[in-house]
């Protein structure tokens, strides 16, 4: 698996030389569900007393399949409504998650994420987002008897094609949760967006959000599995909305 995933990782790294920051709130996990098809919905909406930052909405529908034990491609359809504006079909995105290590074999599990986002409007640039996915399972944390799961995403973006800009944003996502019960796993997550990591002098207005999240899954065995995530994120600085609700619903089934 590692050889194939390594080759794919290198190929994607080269291709990545062709990607904008997407301020969505979605945690990517580095473990592939081989031979499982999934349909997933992600959504978020913001709250702020400033009209320019209130009711910023984003919704996605994704279809994916674990083609190999180390590769899961997904097709994503993005809808968004900026504050005070109508709904727009925003983009069509081709996502790829690569599992680079066997789950639990090393100190942490490593994956790689790469997506190509094709903007619906000719006025917007296409984009590539890519970067490592790291997950650490920490059982019996600090001798508490509690099992915990920690996930980190570091995704760099680059716009390509017409109307692109040369900034290189970085999106940092962190989630730590308690594996109390498959149905109910409470945790904390952080989402940070840095506008341009390639030119520190132009780095302005990063956004920081942190808040509680609950994650769970309900197994219906041969009828598939339902998964959910729901979180409330608090803006930590002036450039960030005061509050954001985000959710994820997923149905997956093996074939």
């Amino acid at each position, binding site marked *: 698996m590692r050889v194939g995933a390594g080759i794919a*990782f290198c190929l994607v*790294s080269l291709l990545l030389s062709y990607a904008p920051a997407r301020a969505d709130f979605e945690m990517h996990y580095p473990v592939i569900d*081989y031979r499982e098809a999934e349909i997933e919905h992600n959504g978020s909406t913001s709250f702020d007393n400033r009209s320019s930052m209130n009711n910023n909405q984003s919704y996605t529908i994704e279809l994916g399949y674990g083609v190999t034990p180390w590769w899961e491609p997904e097709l994503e359809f993005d809808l968004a409504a900026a504050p005070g504006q109508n709904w727009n079909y925003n983009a069509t995105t081709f996502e790829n998650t690569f599992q680079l290590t066997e*789950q639990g*074999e090393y100190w942490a599990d490593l994956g790689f994420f790469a997506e190509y986002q094709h903007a619906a409007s000719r006025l917007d640039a296409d984009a590539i987002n*890519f970067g*490592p996915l*790291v997950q650490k399972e920490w059982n019996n944390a600090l001798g508490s008897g509690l099992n915990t799961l920690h996930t980190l995403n570091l995704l760099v973006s*680059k716009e390509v094609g017409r109307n692109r800009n040369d900034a290189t944003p970085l999106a940092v996502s962190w989630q730590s949760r308690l594996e109390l019960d498959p149905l109910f796993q409470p945790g904390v997550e952080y989402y940070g967006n840095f506008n341009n990591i390639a030119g520190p002098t132009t780095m302005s207005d990063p956004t920081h959000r942190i808040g509680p999240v609950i994650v769970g899954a309900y197994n219906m065995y041969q009828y598939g599995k339902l998964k959910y995530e729901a979180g409330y994120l608090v803006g930590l600085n002036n450039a960030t909305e005061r509050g954001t609700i985000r959710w994820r619903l997923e149905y997956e089934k*093996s074939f």
Partner: protein
Amino acid sequence: MILQIIRNMLPAGIEGVAIMARRLAVIALLFLYASVASARAQEPANFNIAIKEHHFEPAELDVPAGIKFTVTVKNLNDTAAEFESTVLNREKVVVGGASITVYLGPLTPGSYEFFNDFDPDARGHIVVK
């Protein structure tokens, strides 16, 4: 030379991404190297399970507490199975006639259930003592 040709083919604005991709690749490789080196230092204990018709053999595995270990799951059926444990956060498909390795632990004493997600009547336990 090949890299130079590829670089020349790319528009100027994309150089930054290529550099970033290389840096991320280096970080990933360093991580893998460190992980492999530490893993080789302590080879985990291995336990075997077979999936035969509609059950696991053995259906109960005794494992010491506090160690990292592997479970090799061999599927003796012609059809695919999925070794799954919600409590252990593992889910892995094993096609007919093949085997997989599942990395687990260290675990605290207790009984951890696993099952075949494609045939949920087939169940077993890892008993950690």
